[in-house]
């Protein structure tokens, strides 16, 4: 027993020490966090009620079907109109934070990579978590990235941003102002298949492959087996994997 008891004691001690450190430091970064921006001075119990109302876990894969406004001025129900039968890319952003956390720039590379498939096979949504990002400002922002029609910049109420963030990160309100990295979510909502990748995209082709992995490949059933890999050492291919180049059998 002694081994276990000692471990508990050690772990508890360390926990208490670090708790003290954190308590001293947390308030410095809290000021501009998403929850602070979103909630303002709204009473706690109202937020709780609101969140409980918009997130119905038995429907819509848990997505809040909140009303969102696109940078085009159009108003949508987030799940029913934009997501429910589609392959989608979703990220959270703020115009003000873009220089520090260039997530929209990376989304733009991905969207550009997909070209005409955006708006047809794949739909992209960038959700602002900053109240200051009005549809008008988002329209200018979208224009600066040459956003095609299938890429919409969405804004909504602070509470609904929190609810959407809660669904996608499956975590509590987050300190986006203090974040150094973020995720791009991709999913096939008609199947219920969801994944994430780092928003720091260093290889657009590979990032596109990750997204298309949640789409049907429409391979003919019973077709001849195809070798995925490893490829021969004398053949060309990317350094990051050993797959055959596409088309080779």
């Amino acid at each position: 027993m002694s081994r276990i008891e000692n471990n508990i004691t050690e772990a508890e001690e360390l926990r208490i020490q670090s708790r003290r450190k954190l308590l001293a430091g947390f308030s410095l970064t809290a000021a501009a966090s998403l929850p602070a921006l979103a909630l303002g001075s709204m009473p706690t119990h109202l937020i709780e009620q609101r969140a409980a109302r918009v997130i119905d876990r038995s429907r819509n894969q848990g997505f809040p079907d909140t009303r969102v406004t696109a940078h085009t001025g159009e108003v949508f129900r987030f799940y029913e109109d934009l997501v429910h039968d589609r392959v989608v890319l979703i990220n959270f952003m703020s115009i003000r934070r873009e220089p520090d956390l260039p997530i929209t720039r990376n989304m733009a590379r991905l969207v550009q990579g997909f070209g005409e498939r955006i708006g047809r096979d794949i739909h992209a949504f960038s959700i602002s978590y900053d109240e200051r990002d009005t549809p008008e400002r988002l329209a200018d922002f979208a224009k600066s990235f040459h956003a095609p029609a299938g890429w919409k910049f969405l804004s909504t109420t602070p509470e609904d941003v929190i609810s959407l963030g809660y669904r996608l990160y499956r975590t509590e309100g987050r300190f986006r102002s203090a974040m150094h990295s973020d995720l791009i979510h991709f999913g096939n909502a008609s199947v219920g298949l969801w994944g994430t990748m780092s928003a720091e995209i260093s290889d657009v082709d590979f990032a596109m492959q990750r997204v298309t992995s949640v789409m049907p490949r429409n391979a003919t059933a019973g077709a001849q087996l195809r070798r995925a890999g490893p490829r021969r050492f004398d053949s060309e291919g990317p350094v990051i994997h050993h797959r055959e180049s596409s088309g080779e059998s």
Partner: protein
Amino acid sequence: MPKRRDVLKLGAMAGGLGMTSSGALARGAVPQSGLVFPQGFTPSIFERPSPPSTPFKDPLYRMPVAEPVNPASLNPNPDGRRHQRFYDFPPAKYYREVIQERRWRYHSDPPYADGSWSYTMNGSIPGPTYHAYYGEPVFVRRINRLPDVGQGKVPFALPSTTMHLHNGHTASESDGIPTDFMNPGEFWDHHYANFPAGFDDREIMNTLWYHDHRLDFTAPNVYAGLSGFYLLFDDLDSNNENDPNPDAFRLPSGEYDIPLIFHDVQFSEDGQAIFDFFAAGEPPGVTEKSPDDSSPSTIYRGTDNITLFGMLGDKITVNRIIQPFLDVEARKYRFRLLNGGPSRFYNFWLRLERADGTVIDNHPGLKFYIVSNDGNLLPEPIEAENVEVWVANRYDVIVDFSAFEPGDKVYLVNRMDMRRDGAGPTGRLLDEGELAMRFDVMPAVGEDPSRIPDFMRELPDINMDEVRRERTWVFDYDNGLWTVNGNLMDANRIDANIEQGSAEIWTIRNAGNTWAHPIHTHFEEFQILEINGRPVKDGELKRSRKDIIELGPNMEIKFFGRWRDFFGTHVMHCHNVVHEDHEMMIQWRIVPPGQGD
């Protein structure tokens, strides 16, 4: 924990080993339907628990031993130009493993009896157990016959897989790294050379496993079924308890050598496995920070549903059967314990129930002789009353049922209290715990020729002169995302270029103060030098060859590692596979001498 020899010397078999929880003798060992959670919290496994199932109704599943195939039956033929050192280690055996969606019966009660849709290997989950031998290289062709996205019955998993041989001293292209995936209708060839690292017999490994490692989708894919055992034998651990070789260890073998893989699973009301990231806990809300809350977030609190942290199921399955039983003879058995994840850790103990219903927690026979750590035989067996098994940990243990009477029932009890969000243990030991499986003691059929050896494998030397450099890896949390040295995983980024043949010292640090990470690095076993600045001493369980770091809150661990025999890219990551999928992974590459960073 005493070494076995010391205990024998002292004859102190009974003293001081017993569990002292109150009421341990009085209550029945009646199985509990759920796990013990802190008050005031209702995780989804309570809110929408799996349908009930009669405990210990179904026998333990014994996976079939994989059967070799004629290489001529593989079309196209195996091609040595695709594998490093293929011609140095020409395959002696060839296998074909087909991955398909099939129903799997986790239990015989309804609704489970109709089967749960799963990703199976040759129709089985866990997959077939490979029996491989040092000196006999193996070739495995894996074929993905899963249905296309949207066509299958397992909505949460991705029908694209890469199979990693966990522990294997395997070249990058056969290792099953996250980016080497195969889609439906595709196959991948794996070459397992089955030689010890550096051709050093002290590097021989014995209990390995294979599992999916698909980029972004490892947690759901393993959960859907993709895991199995790969056992390696050699002249000493020879798979023969009657081995006439005087040096052979003669550990319990054959029928008495049983791999046990643990997965905790949640099921829907119609008995289908659900990977329920989202529905756990209460809806989000906002509460004030409580005084004992150490997280930096202050305003938006109140949800217990932080399931990016982990995925806990409420049914503990052993070899994919819910709470099975196993008839055992009153003799020694070798159990190969493996935590297959996704996120739950286990702390296993044994509990005895006599035929008259008396429950005994401190019988001298209720102990494990731990013979391996992470599948690698120890210098000497270690006797212990419990064994802590983090995700991907493997411990081979010997349990000697000759200490019990026919008619006795021995329970394998999990007493680990996990954080409700799945991110690690609470540090508390559950009083009663959850009964994972039951051993029903029968009379021994014959003599027990097996042994618990006094000495097994010596550890390889740690030669500091070989150390070319040190590296530090900090595992942390960035507002909902899991990071290593501040970064999320990027398949296009190599985080370390290691020179082949060199040794390095790595410091693995947990910057988090409440969560725990089982950190796994591929390719070669390492030896831990220090835990929180304290050297690991001879005779301790962690004085062993390992591939998992049990990185508790605020811990710092230093290890000595070597990288030999092959070139190429591998990964290190958290083996709480939910953390892994949410980017807690780095890539390192073995490069020729002179090209390292």
